[in-house]
């Protein structure tokens, strides 16, 4: 019987407009992909470490102390970049939350979570350093300075963002709730700042804490910009690494739903320890 000539399986015709394979992704996407790959993150970490080291050396030793405040003013080189990074991550949380609500893409939510967690770190640091610096200058650990108070409100909003994530049993819903809290918190910040400025009734010019006034000595400004760059690099590293862990956690969670695994595992506990306690697979395959 004539063997039926096997028609060669139709090759998956690459869509003419979009050649398949890595080449079709735009240059930006490829660069982002490289940055977020585990190797990329490692080099980000190294760059951040180098920049932080250099900035510490410069701001502690090289730069002259401030005429009025003396060495205490060196705290500016950590307090101001921390404040800048805190507000940066808050803006990223708000933007990513809005994008997640708008498009429903999961990577926006991961970016929002990563930025929120980094935000909590830097906001807490800003407040601690701010009061540490305020102590010798204003003689009090806490003054209702508009910026410090707004940063404190920022910290409360971050706490709300992270607390709301775990509330519903449906992780998608938790992500949506936290996105809404992140957005509402972001809309709050300008009103908070304005209220506190009026509330104190003080309209004195920017206090010495406010940087960037060109009157600062050239070298100090350079040291400050280096510190800001270093903090931003570290922030980028923390966010990128946190996004990878979030992606891995979500992948594991979805993995647990795939049929072969599901039968072997009775998922009740959270993913991390759940996998650790997963019983050794029964059936012939178990080689444990």
């Amino acid at each position: 019987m004539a063997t039926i000539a096997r028609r060669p399986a139709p090759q998956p015709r690459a869509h003419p407009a979009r050649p398949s394979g890595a080449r079709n992704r735009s240059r930006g996407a490829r660069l982002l992909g490289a940055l977020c790959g585990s190797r990329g993150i490692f080099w980000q970490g190294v760059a951040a470490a180098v920049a932080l080291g250099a900035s510490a050396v410069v701001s502690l030793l090289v730069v002259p102390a401030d005429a009025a405040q003396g060495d205490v003013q060196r705290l500016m080189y950590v307090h101001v970049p921390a404040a800048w990074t805190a507000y940066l991550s808050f803006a990223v949380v708000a933007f990513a939350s809005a994008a997640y609500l708008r498009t429903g893409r999961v990577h926006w939510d991961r970016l929002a979570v990563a930025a929120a967690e980094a935000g909590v770190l830097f906001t807490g640091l800003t407040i601690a350093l701010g009061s540490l610096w305020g102590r010798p200058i204003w003689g009090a650990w806490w003054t209702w300075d508009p910026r410090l108070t707004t940063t404190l409100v920022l910290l409360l909003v971050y706490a709300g963002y992270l607390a709301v994530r775990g509330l519903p049993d449906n992780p998608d819903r938790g992500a949506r709730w936290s996105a809404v809290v992140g957005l509402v918190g972001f809309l709050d910040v300008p009103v908070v700042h304005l209220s506190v400025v009026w509330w104190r009734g003080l309209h004195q010019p920017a206090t010495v804490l406010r940087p960037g006034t060109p009157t600062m000595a050239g070298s100090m400004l350079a040291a400050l910009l280096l510190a800001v760059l270093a903090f931003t690099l570290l922030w980028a590293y923390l966010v990128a690494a946190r996004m990878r862990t979030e992606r891995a956690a979500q992948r594991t969670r979805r993995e647990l739903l795939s049929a072969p695994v599901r039968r072997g595992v009775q998922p009740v506990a959270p993913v991390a320890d759940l996998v650790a306690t997963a019983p050794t697979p029964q059936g012939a395959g178990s080689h444990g």
Partner: protein
Amino acid sequence: MTGEALALAAKDLRLELRGRHAVSTVLPFAVTLLVALGLALGPDRPLLRQVAPGLLWITVLFAAVLATRRSYELEGEDGALEGLLLSPADPAAIFLGKAAALSVQLLALEVVLVTVMALLFGLPLAAAPVALALVCLLATVGLAAIGSLFGVVAQAARTREGVLPLLVLPAAIPLLVDAVRATSLALEGRDVTGWLGLLLSFDVVALAAGTLLYGYLVED
């Protein structure tokens, strides 16, 4: 859309008149808190008059949290909230209806609280009654908007206890600051237009956020 919001607000208020929860629990709580705060600060009348606005708005804030929780509990009792969400009504209409009903309840509460404070702390209400009324109105609308927005989160969350204050209080901080300052200025008869503008901007932000984002909170 407005028809549904009005129907919902009317239903909420009728439920309130029937259940009289605000009158029977929230009001006594508020007055007790006020008196306790007053006692804690001592009999010194000028001091009391100076902190009176702060006491008023702290009490209203906590009363708002209680009233919001009660309003959503009534919905959740028999799954009525899900009935609302499964109706073709736009989530924004549900939000506005709840916020309107809550505002009316809180305003009624404030009228009583302000008169009680006027008696206890000897506040010169006659100084600028219109300004005072405007401040109370704008502050209450903002508070009701935040309460209604986050109330559904507290109702649907697994651990219900501490969620509502955790979400409402940080968001209400600017409102608290503005209302206290505006009230004290109003009592002294000074100009409050700047603060009213700030309160108004807060209300616009809160209502806009509520209208746009309520849909995301309620969908499962």
